[in-house]
């Protein structure tokens, strides 16, 4: 199948080329600053023509990002960025289309668009800022807030089961899912670059800290003190090892994952799972997405599948060849037509 290529820049670009002159209005200490930095770095590294980047957003703190980037940008309405971006990509497959969204924007009001974008596999990258809270409306619980959490609208604790974005992506036949923390800029850029090279919908869940309304929500996973034991950084073809000394590993026991330690109870490197992000079978990817301790980070899944826009362009080309019509006039003049 022929695929539309996104044109590359003739000149090398830097991170600064992609930052706009607008004042960044996120709170000091917000994870957004680091995310913005990684996005600009990734855009420069991916090297597409600057005019062919398109950043689309919905509503929420995450969704201010188009204003901060020196690209074409569209700040939409709550939850609808995925739908707006779909229209853009369908019309213009030659654009590198990005969506910045949050857990409220994409998991609640825009949940429907989110799963359908993933199912259709348009070549769009979604940065899902997951801070487990509604920040811009000042602290209400979101669909990813952990059960029991006290927030402004759950004074006695939430009584809702939170969504795990990775489960939604895999349940929607997603072709790319990655998870990364906002305080790991190098990993963030690496994951974003991988997404930029993926042909299909790429979802990046960014564990983001909201210093005001959900501070340290991800601390167990992301803080310097505890992250080595609570993050599993996945690399394709590498054994799933983690911990400060990389002695802990993940073993498959029946249909569940378990944490084991090298050298204990006869566990050797042979017992440790090797990550295969390219396997079509999503079963292990799902187990990894659901794993709570450690939390799987990096690219969990990256598989090839035809994109919506390529299939559409192919249909157009096929129909154009088999039906030699040039104009709607030809259509109107075919069938039951008569002269008077």
């Amino acid at each position, binding site marked *: 199948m022929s695929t539309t290529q996104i044109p590359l820049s003739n000149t090398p670009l830097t991170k600064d080329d992609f930052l706009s002159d607008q004042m960044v209005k996120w709170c000091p200490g917000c994870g957004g600053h680091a995310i913005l930095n990684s996005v600009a770095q990734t855009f420069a590294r991916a090297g597409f023509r600057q005019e062919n980047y398109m950043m689309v957003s919905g509503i929420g703190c995450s969704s201010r990002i188009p204003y901060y980037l020196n690209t074409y940008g569209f*700040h939409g*309405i709550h939850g609808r960025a995925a739908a707006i971006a779909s229209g853009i990509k369908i*019309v213009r497959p030659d654009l590198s289309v990005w969506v910045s969204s949050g857990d409220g924007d994409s998991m609640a009001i825009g949940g429907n668009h989110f799963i359908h974008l993933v199912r259709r596999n348009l070549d769009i990258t979604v940065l899902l800022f997951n801070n487990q809270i509604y920040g811009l409306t000042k602290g209400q619980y979101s669909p990813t807030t952990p059960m029991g959490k006290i927030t402004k609208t759950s004074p006695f604790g939430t009584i809702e089961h939170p969504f795990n974005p990775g489960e939604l992506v895999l349940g929607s036949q997603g072709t790319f899912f990655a998870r990364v923390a906002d305080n790991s800029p190098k990993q963030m850029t690496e994951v974003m670059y991988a997404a930029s090279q993926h042909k299909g919908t790429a979802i990046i869940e960014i564990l983001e800290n909201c210093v005001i309304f959900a501070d340290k929500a991800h601390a167990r996973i992301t803080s310097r003190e505890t992250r080595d034991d609570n993050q599993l950084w996945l690399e394709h073809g590498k054994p799933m090892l983690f911990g400060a000394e990389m002695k802990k590993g993940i073993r498959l026991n029946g249909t569940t994952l378990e944490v084991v330690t090298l050298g204990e109870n006869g566990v050797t490197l042979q017992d440790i799972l090797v990550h295969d992000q390219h396997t079509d079978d999503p079963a292990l990817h799902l187990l990894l997405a659901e794993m709570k301790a450690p939390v799987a980070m990096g690219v969990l899944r990256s598989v090839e599948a035809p994109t919506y826009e390529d299939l559409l362009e192919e249909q157009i080309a096929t129909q154009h060849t088999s039906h030699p019509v040039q104009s709607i006039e030809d259509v109107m003049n075919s069938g039951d037509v*008569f002269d*008077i």
Partner: protein
Amino acid sequence: MSKRTIIELDRVVVKFAGDSGDGMQLTGTLFSEAAAKAGNDLSTFPDYPAEIRAPQNTVSGVSGFQVHIGRKKVMTSGDHFDVLVAMNPASLKANLKMARKGATIILNTDAFADEKALEKAGYTTHPFEDNSLNSFNVIKAPVQTLVREATADLGLDPKSVDKTRNMFALGILLFIFNKTLDSTNEYIQAKFGKKPLMAEANKRALEAGYIYADNMEALESTFHVDAAPLPKGKYRNVIGNVATAWGLIAAAERSGLPLFLGSYPITPATDILIELSQHRALGVKTFQAEDEIAGICSAIGASYAGALAITTTSGPGLSLKSEAIGLAVITELPLVIVDVQRAGPSTGMPTKSEQSDLYQALFGRNGECPCLVMAASSPADCFYAAFEAARLSLEHMTPVILLTDGYIGNGSQLFRIPRIKDLPEIHPPLAQANDTSYQPFARDPQTLVRKWAVPGTEGLRHRVGGLEKTDGAGAVSTDPLNHQKMVDLRAQKVAKVADNIPEQTLEGHPESDTLIISWGGTYGAVSSAVTQLQQSGTPVAHAHFRYIMPLPRNTSEILGRYKKIIVCELNGGQFVNYLRMTHPGHNYAQFNKVQGQPFLVEELVAHIQSVIQ
């Protein structure tokens, strides 16, 4: 058979009625095609239940298709029918009250032998015995028995054979009106080419009906409707929703832009999506979205990306799109929103027609949020209205809501096929690459239209969005005076579209004291009523509005000429109240009907006469 006389008619109205699932919509369409091919002018009205297979033999399950053919201009699908084909008791029960006196009624007698069917239809006495049909010319045909006989040697199961009953009925009609079987046989061949037995069964049923009619003693004469004296040209029959789709494609061609449709299926608008999805060969991109909101939001994205972007829907879907229409208004992007109105509120009566979305189109959004509103007047006019909606949207960088309705969207009409090069060129205000003076909200001083900078264009990177922006530079702003200015500019921009649309025209007898006003899909009925009034010595003027927001620039002057103004519309009085609001001080009267059915010409005539006297 003895030679019959052929009676020449100016016009005739035929109604096909049966259970939903009896194929009456198809029968009516094929009869219309045969009439169109013979050069008759025509107008059709499919009237069917929302259910796909409604409870059998009930009045609520009756599916009807009315077609009005003439050798003179045909403006409506007709108030009363001259011929009724009733496939079962329920369809007779449901339709008899709309029969013209002396009408020919063709009945499938097999169904009338079924006591349960009679009971379900609500008959307490048998209509063949209770004198209710005395004033009609009744033709009884045991359709089921005869199609089974005609196809006996084909070895088909009874269910398949019964599906050909509609062709038998059509055969009778084609004989009575001296039409050939050719176009129907061609259709059957195309439709059942891969099922030769079904093709043969349908052809035999059609021919059996034709021969049955020829052999009927009761049929003393047949009828002929001569070709209408239409201007020379290429013609075809077209349904409104298809014409809408074609008009949009034509606009894409005349603007040089790709066409994108984001839409979610909803009765009675779905046929536009279906039609546009056929035309991949022309590069048309249709996107069946996950919901109404994604339909319009994808279209807004497509518009930002440089396409002629469309979303199509019906009333409840327009409600869901409201917030996104506001986004298109504030980002000042072109977008055509087609609303094929149906009876509301809420789900209402999905297959029935109304004009009750006008308030929603004009006012149904948060904030000060003006956009263009237009209305198509007939099935064929849907082509031109859709083209015009796209032209205005693209040239003025503003969303346009085009109102059609179930009656004209599903109805069909003879359509003179235009040449695309005869349609106006459309000039979207595209920004030029590397225009160093480019600002997203800098405006043309005359029209107040901003320039459209499409992603990928060098040197024009910019951001738009739902937040208020500064005039010119387009930076996010909550400055009080800037907001006032932007609100005023957006309103003025829409108002200035009046300079780019024709003046309102008058029909009927413009010198009269009384002005009849209509808009949208009621044109045929109101115009026919105005003609009848004139013939009966009550001349009135008639203004049919196509442009609603803004109104044509001479509206005030026209309204000022008349002592009495009667606004006729299929809602509770939405356009008349809009006129009262925008043009106060006139003597407005109103005639409203909210029954999910089109105006009858006779009720319009009667009402207007009563108001004048």
